[in-house]
């Protein structure tokens, strides 16, 4: 079935032997890469805009100019990131068709419509982001605040819709399939499938945690560099408190989800626990990989996995052997899921400890700017939270393999059989690297100019132009 390419004859031959089209590997890598890029922007659409409104509200309510300045700057950062998110999201919708026609052609009727709902929310978000960014100092302050309120709400709605589609792939409910064709759809069951609320709540909290720590990290760096102003402390506190308060809640939600996965997606749970054989009194393995079907390395804590799954050491956990051979994930996939889960939980524990450290500092009334080690840790908390987000996403996506839609569609049947994906993937990597670098350069330049010249000098994608901006352009042209 695999087309024997000329340059990659050996590889193609190998893949043909395993029944996998040669497009599968690059298609999966490309999807992972572009989704991994896009998912970074979600917390900023959902949560940074909320922080922005909190600061805006506080600024208006208490006449707090520092808070208003924070809101204004965050809105400009959100605008840049929203622009990037809009285009990387568009690419994803193209990729669904170009890379996964087997999925869209067969199940588009079933799980395509949540994306239509997502489009609706995205539309609203795009409109109100424009209104809010352009409205600074152009409308009455409270009317302007109100134009911002739909932004995080629409972003949240859009996220919920995408998660409905994704969770449906884990729990494909609400469809009747006959001869590989969808003959009946029950939209409410599709959208609110068994996995929806778990994934939704988990992602929602993750978004606020990532954005909160990322924002706090920026101002922690400022404090470390000696900019100990009320503005910096306020920026730090709004971000940090929002994130740190939600970390314990995320633990409760995550723990609940783990037990749900144990019940509803035993193959994924076996991969998370790195468990080849079914058994009771299962130890929790920290680290370690699966090699030739056996667990290597790693630290085992006796009985803990069984206790966590069913509150009793005698709880039976299904191992990978319980999965039919044709649907069994590869050792590499299992190891990836397991390690990603460990990273997610491990880093979350670190973030929880960071929040407790902060509580202790507050209790002892220690001035923030002198707590240099605490601030250094805070500076890294954003990337750490992002790593958690990525790991969690790897657990749910790789953990579903080899299925694209559990029980209905294998990934190798979903992938396109047309053309060579590698050049497309290569172009995507190059362009995304350029776009990502461009976004960072632009954000950095905005920050420098805020520090050097004040806020009105800085143009943003959705913002009106400025006199100072043009004067600068004029100078640039002459030089």
């Amino acid at each position, binding site marked *: 079935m695999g087309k024997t390419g000329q340059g990659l004859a050996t590889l193609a031959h190998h893949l043909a032997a395993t029944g996998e089209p040669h497009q599968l590997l690059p298609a999966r890598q490309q999807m992972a890469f572009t989704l991994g890029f896009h998912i970074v922007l979600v917390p900023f659409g959902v949560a940074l805009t909320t922080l922005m409104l909190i600061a805006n509200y506080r600024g208006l309510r208490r006449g707090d100019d520092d808070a208003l300045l924070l809101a204004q700057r965050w809105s400009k950062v959100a605008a840049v990131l929203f622009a990037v998110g809009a285009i990387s999201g*568009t690419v994803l919708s193209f990729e669904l068709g170009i890379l996964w026609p087997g999925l869209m052609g067969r199940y588009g009727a079933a799980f395509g419509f949540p994306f239509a709902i997502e489009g609706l929310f995205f539309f609203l978000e795009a409109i109100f982001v424009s209104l809010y960014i352009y409205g600074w100092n152009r409308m009455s302050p409270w009317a302007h605040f109100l134009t911002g309120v739909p932004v995080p709400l629409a972003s949240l709605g859009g996220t919920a819709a995408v998660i409905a589609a994704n969770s449906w792939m884990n729990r494909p409910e609400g469809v009747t399939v006959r001869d590989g064709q969808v003959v009946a759809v029950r939209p409410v069951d599709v959208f609110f499938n068994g996995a929806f609320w778990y994934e939704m709540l988990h992602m929602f909290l993750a978004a606020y945690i990532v954005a909160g720590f990322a924002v706090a990290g920026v101002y922690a760096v400022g404090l470390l560099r000696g900019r100990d102003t009320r503005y910096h402390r306020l920026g730090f506190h709004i971000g940090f408190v929002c994130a740190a308060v939600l970390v314990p809640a995320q633990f409760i939600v995550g723990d609940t989800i783990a037990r749900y996965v144990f019940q509803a997606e035993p193959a994924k749970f076996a991969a998370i626990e790195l468990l080849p054989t079914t058994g009771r009194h299962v130890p929790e393995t920290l680290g370690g990989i699966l090699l030739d079907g056996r667990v290597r390395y790693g630290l085992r804590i006796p009985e803990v996995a069984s206790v966590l799954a069913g509150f009793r050491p005698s709880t039976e956990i299904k191992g990978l052997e319980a999965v039919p051979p044709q649907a069994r994930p590869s050792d590499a996939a299992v190891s990836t899921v397991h390690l990603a889960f460990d990273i997610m939980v491990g880093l979350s524990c670190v973030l929880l400890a960071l929040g407790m450290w902060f509580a202790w500092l507050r209790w002892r009334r220690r001035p923030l700017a002198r707590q240099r080690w605490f601030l250094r840790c805070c500076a890294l908390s954003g990337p750490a939270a992002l790593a958690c987000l990525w790991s969690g996403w790897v657990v749910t996506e790789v953990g579903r393999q080899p299925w694209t839609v559990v029980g209905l569609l294998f990934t190798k049947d979903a992938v396109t059989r047309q053309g060579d994906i590698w050049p497309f993937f290569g172009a995507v990597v190059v362009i995304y690297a350029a776009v990502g670098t461009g976004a960072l350069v632009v954000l950095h330049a905005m920050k420098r100019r805020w520090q050097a010249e004040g806020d009105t000098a800085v143009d943003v994608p959705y913002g009106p132009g400025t006199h100072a901006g043009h004067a600068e352009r004029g100078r640039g042209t002459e030089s």
Partner: protein
Amino acid sequence: MAAVVAVFLFIGVIAYCLLGGADFGAGFWDLTAGGAARGRRRRHLVDTSLGPVWEANHTWLIYCLVILWSGFPRAFAAITTTLYLPLGLAALGIVLRGAGFAFRKAAFRTPEQRVYGLAFALSSVLTPFCFGAIAGGIASGRVPTGGAGDPVTAWLNPTSALGGVLAVAVCAYLAAAYLRVEAHRRRAPDLERHFRTMALLAGLGTGAISIAGIFVLRYDAPHLWHQLSHRAVPLVVVAALCGAASVALAATGRITGLRLLAGAAVAVIVLGWGVAQYPYLLGTHLTVDEAAAPAPTLKVLVGVAVTAGVLILPSLVLLFRLAGRGRLGMSYDDVSH
């Protein structure tokens, strides 16, 4: 129900042509605006006109994609497996374009702006060409029902070439007409003159390409040609009249009704394509009904489209009105810098 969803899909296609198309065309005029010094104010007009609305305009594309893949999944898979090359190019073009536009506005140094601006402008020409070529491939029946048609000739053929070139020309024409009105509104006479000339040239060019297109279609897509010259002929006539009237307006230097007529010409000709193609979604082998998803999905889509109308149109009107009144946009002072 399938026909209703097809109508909603086509409303999206027309909206994207009119709004997204004008944005692409603005990129065309950005590309041809001249050097950094001479083109600065022209580019600035493009920036300030597009700034508040381009993201909302772009969203129509997403709307079309989701309606297509949820409502007509078979057709969607057939299109993506056959036309993956132009689709991939268009996707990359959209990334470059969006990022180039967004970053240029936020970049401060001329060399950086030039790089971002070039990315924006070049991809603004590449992307509509690809979309036009895709439309040509679908309209001329080169996308088989089962998908996996010829990856090259499906979009490199006479009808696709016509579609691609016509798309670029129409975008440029729409954008010139819109920008001419924008320049007038901002009382920038030199920009007004520039875009008046450009609108005239683009209008005449689009007309010439359309007339040449008659022969291309007759030879390469006889079914489409037949329907256009029979069932859809009133629409073709109306489109031609609107186009001619708008070119006449541009030539005589009038503003009133220019945008409306230019937009109407494009909307009606796209509508004509839809009418000529109905009831087929792909060539003459896959009808709208055959490709349609089960009824509950179609109902949800109709619901989404109606909700979009109720929720989004008012906010869109608010945005355009605020932008149009200059509450969000720029004043003459800003442009004259």
